[in-house]
């Protein structure tokens, strides 16, 4: 009896030590790479496979900021909705979203500013239908269930696409689901269509043979936006300029070596090369400054959402432009 008791004690002691050692490792992974110097930290929020992630993989942005004594911290978000919340509370300094989240953010009173606009990416944003679907046009989606993430560029894209087909949101059964839940619903056939963006589009295509009913081309420019807050950019105009220019440089490098980009992204996203290749090849990466045209489209997104009572306050996107 005493022998088994001794064995139990040893086992517990062993487990406890392993536990504590493991926790120590965890601590190391989270905080280990912080330098002793109290450098100012810039926090950047990104989504899967987006231009910030590409800049992250490229490394140039971090290096340039390090030279100016800044450390970069990265935070991944599941979609623009979650990201703009974090931007609002100041948890992140910069973020990349599609064209709709900044409008939503502004309407809730956040002091969001547009720091830069990305090139269009409408080839990778689509209304997806299952492999064996018999739907031939957007009009045919009348009365059907459509999955889309609320408050995202896909949401706006859907509204525009429906409008062109003479339909409104009320003519279809909209299911507001985030990318993960939407994918499951789509695969199970619970929805007739799924409006989404890359990498989810590419993944659905290569994994389960989803078809594109239509891309966002012609409905919206479907641009990326680099966002920040008024307080941050006013206090740190140089850092803002640096982040934008360095990201742009990284993106230009990515365009020139797409095969390397594909390898890096596939590894980072833990996705197969076929999907990443599809995603990367239908896109040209780059940043440009906010033009009047761009602001006009943002305003129309704001007005659309306000008219449909999807946002509560009227938004004037002009106030979100950075005074340079």
């Amino acid at each position, binding site marked *: 009896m005493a022998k088994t008791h001794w064995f*139990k004690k040893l086992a*517990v002691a062993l*487990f*406890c030590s392993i*536990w*504590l050692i*493991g*926790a*120590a*490792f*965890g*601590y190391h*992974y*989270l905080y280990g790479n912080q330098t002793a110097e109290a450098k100012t930290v810039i926090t950047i929020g990104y989504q*899967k496979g987006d231009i910030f992630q590409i800049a992250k993989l490229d490394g140039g942005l971090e290096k340039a900021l390090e030279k100016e004594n800044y450390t970069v911290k*990265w*935070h*991944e978000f*599941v979609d623009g909705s*979650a990201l703009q*919340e*974090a931007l609002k*509370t*100041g*948890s*992140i300094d910069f973020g990349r979203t599609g064209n709709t989240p900044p409008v939503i953010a502004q309407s809730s009173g956040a002091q969001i500013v547009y720091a830069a606009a990305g090139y269009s990416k409408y080839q990778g944003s689509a209304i997806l239908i299952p492999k064996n679907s018999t739907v031939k046009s957007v009009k045919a989606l009348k009365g059907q269930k459509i999955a889309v993430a609320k408050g995202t560029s896909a949401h706006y894209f859907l509204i525009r696409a429906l409008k062109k087909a003479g339909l409104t949101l009320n003519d279809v059964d909209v299911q507001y689901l985030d*990318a*993960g839940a939407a*994918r*499951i619903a789509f*695969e199970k056939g619970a929805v007739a269509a799924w409006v989404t963006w890359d990498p*989810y589009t590419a*993944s659905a295509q290569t*994994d389960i043979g989803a078809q594109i009913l239509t891309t966002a081309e012609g409905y919206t420019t479907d641009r990326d936006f680099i966002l920040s807050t008024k307080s941050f950019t006013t206090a740190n105009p140089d850092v803002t300029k640096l982040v934008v220019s360095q990201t742009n440089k990284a993106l230009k490098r990515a365009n020139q070596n797409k095969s390397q980009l594909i390898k890096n992204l596939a590894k980072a996203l*833990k*996705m197969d090369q076929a999907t990443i290749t599809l995603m990367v090849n239908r896109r040209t990466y780059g940043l440009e400054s906010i033009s009047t045209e761009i602001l006009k489209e943002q305003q129309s997104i704001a007005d659309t959402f306000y008219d449909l009572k999807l946002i509560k306050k009227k938004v004037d996107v002009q106030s979100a432009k950075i005074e340079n």
Partner: protein
Amino acid sequence: MQKFKTKLLNFCLPALLPVSLLLIWQIASQFNLISTKFFPAPSTIIKTVYTLVQGKELFKNVTISLYRATLGLGIGASLGILLGLLTGLSHRANQLLDSTIQMIRNIPHLALLPLVIAWFGVGETSKIFLVAVGVFFPLYANTVHGIQSVDPELIEMGHVYQLSRWQLFTDIIFPSALPAILVGLRYALGIMWTTLIVAETIASDSGIGYMAMNAREFMQMDVILVSILIYALLGKISDLIAKFFENEANHWQINE
């Protein structure tokens, strides 16, 4: 021989159901009786574990989760036991603190998640805070209960034998309350894991919960199941450790 047979039976019988289920599952997958998309075969899962272990991702995420759980537990449990001791021992402290704490206790702590994220952002603080809050209440409540259930006759005996206030605490009050505290600890461990799971799926880019969430977006069912298995394993191990300490503390009780 009889004793060996009984021991063998005691070991095998509980394992019979899960093992048979696993076998049926594996066979069904191999003959495509069930969709391997939604129910990957056990063999696939084992392969996935191997790949993940290889990629060091598993180790990284598991240890990060362990760190968060441990820190949250440490903070929440110490505070819970300390405040529990305080309100259990001091009538004034009880009047001051107990009703407030009981009021907050009635809020399901997971409902605080959006609030916590708004306050503390998406970093480590919010996760550890939430775990600490979840762990605090069972330990507080059980500690108070343990202290208040001490046999008053034993305390009177302590007074007669002129025990100092410190001796009264260490010799009589605390050992009497200890079994209750440890029960609270065991309960708190379960809450620690469930809180962490939720916190890691909402606002995280590391940890087991994140691993599962991440996999969900790409229908990597095998990774999701592995994450669940890991949580189950961690939960079981922590429960066993807690049970061990409980038994150690209760060794003076009659065990027939």
